[in-house]
């Protein structure tokens, strides 16, 4: 799960990592008042207005503006709030800006990169740092890989003080800044663990002209599997940042991801679902979605699956590919027949059922009288659905 920058900043502050102070604004009418409060409460004239969307690269799309005074702040804020912000990480039409974060401005002396995540291969946490802050880590990796510092953290023993010291030293810090960095790194790791984060990134971490280390921008991603024990984090979910169809699907425990093709697919199991999308593409079609209906594909799952797939108006044909292992194909077939009858579908549906009781399932589909295009192998199914989709 992703959260907004203002939420990540709040988490950092809770765990003792300094961030610029700021207020959130969601309504056009509140802009003037919020800017004034930021100036007054935090004793600053210059402020920064930042669009709050989940995608990165906001600055590049014009969603982050330094404002010398209240006039500039109000102007920029009015323009950004409600705009379709396009960044390298959003879709082509961009993402609607519904929230703005107005913060005090900092006198920046130097920018760093600091992040903690999981190294899957090593089965350890990894602290990543660089003196080249303010740009994407992928860019640093490409242009100056030598400037990326990595420190692996043993999951049993945790981050050791010497490791924080070593990173601070490699960042070129000394004196008070080095001391601050050691403490900040420790607190960042603590925040990462305590919130079940999968990524805790500060980019940039800045040293101000006054010599303070401050997390100017923050990004947190969280482990979905741990949300059951992270109520506060779970409450930060912003459904407006997600695709409405995906939010709808999650309510039915369906795992749906919208793509931009025309062939809808409904599959049991994530691996087979991906493979089904792949073969549609190999046969010249474009998958419209990823949809894993899980182990038990019954009438309700099939019906909900159809509703979600067909809410996407670009879908011109649907492929149902179920490999019955423990779940019996004849039951799935009955579910499909009932769902198709009740929903009155107007797109061609190709059905391929394989595995336990597949023969019986084929007979049920054939005898049902509903207009379903039966398929035998994966190849056969993909060819038929692509043909149906392209008309």
């Amino acid at each position: 799960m992703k959260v907004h920058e203002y939420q990540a900043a709040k988490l950092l502050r809770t765990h003792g990592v300094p961030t610029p102070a700021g207020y959130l604004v969601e309504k056009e009418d509140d802009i003037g008042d919020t800017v004034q409060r930021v100036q007054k409460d935090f004793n600053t004239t210059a402020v920064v207005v930042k669009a709050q969307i989940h995608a990165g690269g906001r600055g590049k799309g014009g969603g982050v503006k330094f404002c010398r005074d209240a006039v500039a702040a109000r102007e920029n804020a009015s323009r950004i709030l409600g705009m379709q912000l396009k960044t390298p990480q959003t879709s082509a039409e961009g993402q609607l800006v519904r929230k703005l974060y107005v913060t005090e401005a900092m006198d920046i002396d130097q920018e760093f990169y600091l992040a903690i995540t999981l190294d899957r291969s090593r089965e350890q946490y990894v602290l990543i740092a660089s003196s080249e802050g303010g740009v994407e880590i992928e860019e640093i990796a490409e242009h100056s890989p030598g400037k990326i510092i990595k420190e692996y953290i043993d999951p049993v023993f945790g981050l050791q003080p010497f490791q924080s010291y070593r990173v601070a030293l490699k960042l070129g810090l000394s004196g008070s800044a080095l001391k601050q960095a050691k403490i900040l790194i420790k607190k960042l790791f603590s925040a990462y663990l305590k919130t079940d984060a999968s990524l805790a990134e500060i980019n940039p971490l800045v040293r101000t002209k006054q010599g303070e280390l401050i997390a100017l921008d923050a990004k947190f991603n969280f482990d979905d599997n741990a949300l059951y024990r992270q109520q506060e984090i779970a409450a930060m979910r912003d459904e407006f940042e997600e695709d409405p169809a995906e939010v709808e699907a999650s309510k039915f425990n369906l795992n749906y991801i919208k793509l931009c093709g025309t062939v809808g697919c409904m599959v049991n199991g994530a691996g087979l679902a991906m493979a089904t999308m792949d073969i549609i593409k190999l046969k010249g079609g474009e998958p419209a979605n990823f949809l894993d209906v899980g182990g038990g594909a019954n009438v309700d799952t099939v019906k909900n699956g159809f509703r979600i797939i067909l809410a996407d108006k670009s879908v011109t044909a649907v492929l149902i590919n179920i490999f019955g292992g423990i779940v019996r194909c004849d039951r799935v077939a009955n579910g499909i027949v009932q769902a198709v009858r009740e929903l009155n579908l107007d797109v061609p549906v190709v059905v391929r059922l394989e595995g336990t009781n597949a023969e019986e399932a084929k007979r049920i589909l054939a005898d049902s009288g509903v207009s379903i295009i039966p398929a035998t192998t994966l190849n056969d199914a993909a060819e038929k659905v692509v043909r149906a989709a392209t008309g």
Partner: protein
Amino acid sequence: MRLKRLFAPPPGDLGLTTWRNEEPSSDGDYSRRFDNPVKQVHIMSILLNKSSRIIVQGITGSEGSFHAEQCHKYGNNVVGGVTPGKGGQKAIDDTVPVFNHCQEAREATGANVSLIFVPAPFAADAIKEAAEAGIELIICITEGIPVNDMVQAVSYVRSRGVRLIGPNCPGLLTPDEAKAGIMPGHIARKGSVGVISKSGTLTYEAVHQLVAEGLGQSTCVGIGGDPIIGTTMIDLIGLFEDDPETDAILLIGEIGGQMEIEASRYVKEHARKQVFGFIAGRTAPPGRRMGHAGAIVSGADESAAAKMAIMRDCGICVVESPADLGATIKTKLA
């Protein structure tokens, strides 16, 4: 208790001891299984075979009881179950004893395999409990375990020298011998292709295609789709390489992580047997999690195309279409 003494491992043994496939001698003495304590003999039928003694953690839950019964029907070797607070009960039609904890279960039954269906919030603890009890092979089916819990559990398991498969996996199946997991046993046939896969139903699809081409499997292993798992592709390629019953290996991977890349390099260096590979998710958009917790492209080399290219470079026969898994292997092995 006599059994307890007999099951105590010899000094210096970390649980890596190979268990021989022999039946106990007529006086019920299992201790002969502990010979050859230093050299590990990698035979797939040792990871799971007819003489494996399986306990099911979470045997009284709905998933656990259903699949325990299925496994028992397949291999007739589920010897017990564990559910805290339900010790003394019986499971699988009142035939199999239930214990409160793993240590008790192991001492009473001589179990060497544990199959876990414990709910996600408690599953990592269940894994550690099995490891501490000295269960040599732990298979965790549970999906949705927090990554932080798994990082700890995997470290714990490794320090005890035992093997974990999964979590979030369909488990193991050695056709005609034993099943420890949720794979539909009846679709597989005994044969010489070793199957290693991150996925469940895609494995069934592959097995189905192999059988349709007249090819059986030595063992099918679902390693799981989570970011942190107990047994990697490299571990299993090593085991299959040393298994005289295996002639070829099929690797079914997906987007996300570096495991397929590391496995490919290992194959290039060490593998003598023919290795086939498929990567699911070439149409997956970057940065999106495709069902499995670990299936997300977060770097250029984690995409399906990149992994397939590296596999090819390392001498793996890459199958482009998921529909051609069986046919390709049949042709190449002919």
